[in-house]
């Protein structure tokens, strides 16, 4: 079976740097900066104030509604401040500055005595996930318990576990699948149970043959579980592309996976679900890849939420050379940073440090209308037209050209021989269009 999706590009993998490395744990840094809200949806509200003593797993900020998630203390210590702090995604965000006391003491009753996952009811699973504040680890940080509670009229038949990890450089999902495959499968089953699905597909790109082989072995006995060896092609892991490739269902812009009977979860999300259901453990750390030519000692590291880049990078031996760009996430969708005083958040997947030699400084040219951006766009857009309209200041035009459908995968910009900053223009358009929509209402 060949899994094909629309558009996409072939990217260099650059995964060799960390692919074979085991997961190490970051020693607890002197200070954690825990953003109060780390998901999309209603913002959470801080529940602690300066000078409060907190225990590991204690709720620091409480969900502000159903589509929202709690944030728990990653370790025990003192709240030094609740204030605006630089944030790797939003620039600035209200954060809780936590000074660990070094004891790393759990809150009373945590971890819970192990619960038999077989006995957990769908409601219990959802509650456990909600209590644990789990958000999607695939990047979007959408509260997972919401996805596990599909409305009655949207029956779910399939759960997709997204182990594609199509972003170059990143190997954190790979490492997780190697480290805790059984927990991952257990989490996936729990998700199936929660949504009432009958099918489970684990999609992994074929540049991870070891994991593919291992998972196939482990699931051979299960008729309702299949492992899909996906061709390595970016953005294989994007929800829509994955669903299209694996299940042949097309999910248009504006629709959710559940509209076609699917729930997609990242492998690390599945592991977190398993931890939450079995031991009641909240999402207080995340597995990230620290890599790039400017890092002395690239690693896969498990870090507490709120660890600053500076501390993480120091743990990886610091810089091998002057970094020119530091990216939170992968090179295709990640956010370039200007400071190392920013924290890792729950959905973090990597810190990438590129040297000057890795940057493409070829001059920008006018669009030659080669049409490559159209061919590679998984959403079937005309990126160059949207960019042109943005340049001309015609945002109504950009809206009509469906700028809002763009998933910002970056394929168009990657492929453009003229080096046009298409995604940047489209992101500008989306910002302005959303702004206008807000004003219209």
């Amino acid at each position, binding site marked *: 079976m060949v899994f094909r999706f629309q558009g996409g590009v072939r990217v260099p993998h650059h995964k060799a740097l960390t692919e074979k490395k085991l997961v190490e744990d970051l020693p607890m840094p002197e200070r954690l900066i825990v953003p109060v809200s780390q998901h999309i949806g209603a913002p959470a509200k801080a529940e602690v104030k300066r000078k409060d003593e907190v225990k590991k797993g204690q709720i620091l900020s409480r969900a502000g509604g159903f589509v929202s998630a709690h944030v728990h203390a990653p370790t025990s210590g003192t709240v030094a401040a609740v204030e605006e702090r630089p944030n790797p995604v939003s620039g600035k965000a209200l954060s809780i500055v936590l000074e660990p006391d070094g004891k790393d003491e759990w809150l009373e009753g945590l971890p819970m005595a192990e619960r038999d996952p077989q006995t957990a009811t769908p409601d219990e699973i959802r509650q456990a996930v909600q209590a644990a504040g789990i958000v999607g680890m695939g990047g979007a940080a959408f509260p997972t318990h919401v996805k596990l509670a599909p409305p009655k009229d949207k029956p779910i038949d399939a759960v997709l576990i997204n182990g594609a990890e199509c972003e170059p450089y990143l190997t954190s999902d790979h490492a997780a699948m190697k480290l805790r495959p059984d927990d991952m499968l257990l989490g996936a089953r729990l998700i199936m149970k929660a949504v009432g699905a009958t099918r489970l597909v684990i999609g992994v790109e074929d540049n991870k043959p070891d994991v593919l082989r291992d998972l196939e072995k482990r699931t051979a006995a299960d008729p309702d579980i299949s492992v899909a060896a996906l061709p390595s092609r970016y953005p294989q892991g994007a929800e829509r592309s994955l669903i299209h490739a694996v299940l042949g269902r097309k999910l248009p812009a504006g629709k959710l996976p559940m509209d076609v009977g699917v729930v997609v979860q990242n492998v690390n999300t599945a592991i977190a679900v398993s931890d939450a259901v079995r031991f009641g453990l909240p999402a207080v750390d995340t597995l990230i890849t620290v890599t790039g030519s400017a890092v002395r000692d690239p690693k896969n590291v498990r870090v507490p939420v709120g660890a600053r880049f500076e501390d993480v990078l120091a743990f990886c031996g610091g810089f091998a050379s002057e970094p020119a760009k530091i990216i939170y996430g992968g090179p295709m969708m990640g956010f370039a940073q*200007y*400071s190392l005083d920013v924290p890792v958040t729950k959905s973090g997947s990597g810190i990438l440090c590129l040297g000057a030699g890795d940057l493409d400084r070829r001059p920008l040219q006018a669009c030659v209308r080669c049409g490559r951006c159209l061919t590679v766009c998984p959403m079937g857009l005309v990126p160059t037209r949207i960019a042109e309209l943005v340049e001309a*200041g015609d945002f109504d035009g950009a809206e009509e050209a469906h700028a809002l459908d763009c998933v910002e995968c970056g394929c168009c910009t990657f492929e453009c021989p003229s080096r046009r*900053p298409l995604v940047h223009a489209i992101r*500008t358009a989306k*910002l302005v269009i959303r702004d206008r929509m807000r004003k219209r209402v």
Partner: protein
Amino acid sequence: MPDSTLIVSLQEMLVAFGAAAAPTEIENPLVLVGVMLGLGATFGFLLAYADKKIAVKLNPLIHVVEEELPKGQCGACGFPGCAKYAEAVVEDPSVKPNLCVPGGDAVAALVAELTGKVMEKTEPRVAVVMCRGDSEIARQRYLYDGIPDCRSANLLFGGGKACEYGCLGFGNCTKVCNFEAISMGPKGLPVVDLSLCVGCGACAEACPRDVIELVPRHAKVLVPCRSHDKAGVVKKACEAGCLGCSLCKKACPHDAIVMDNFLARVNPDICKTCDDPLCLTAKCQPKIIGRVSLDG
């Protein structure tokens, strides 16, 4: 030669004249007078009749009002173009006569008179760039590699400028002015030509950072900065940033200056009555509080 293809050729003309109507026939002026009279009368009648009996009568006042508007088509009135405003202000009693910003009081008075509406005074205002952090003074915090557009730059954590309130300098504001009143200066800050600016506010609207403010022309003193940061942060970012030290506020005997979250703001309406601006004597460290004359 295609150029000569349209010839109502001489031959044709002559055949016509010569064969069908020898010159002698034209001698009979009655035919000619009859035809011309007939044609003229027919057309004249048709037009006049249509105009009187068929034409949709438009309020002629609309045209009169439109004539008086400055035709900048800037949209500051909130209507798509001067003609639409003219129509609205004539037809709709709730539309105010003073909406045309470029026209100012003079036009407002005329429109009010024409439409029989009550005239309210509009303050003539002008765009002021509330930032002095030019490319020499303001520090950058990163190298921006992207579209030269203020909005796009603002998207990436608020742009490369260390100050999060200052002008980004890509000139979005200069692109929207219908009156060519604002342009980029040599050091990366936009410059407003006071004599051309009509205060329509398009530039302020376009600025993603709200750096541009519409200030009454009678304003005397301004603190051209928008930074609400505390002194320490400001000092690191820019030499021309308001530190929020409130020395000027203390120096002003009329309470015309208020501190708004570490930023001094001057109230021009109080300030205009002041003959002796003591605030200027305050030891403003960045030396940005200053006298302005915005009368174009």
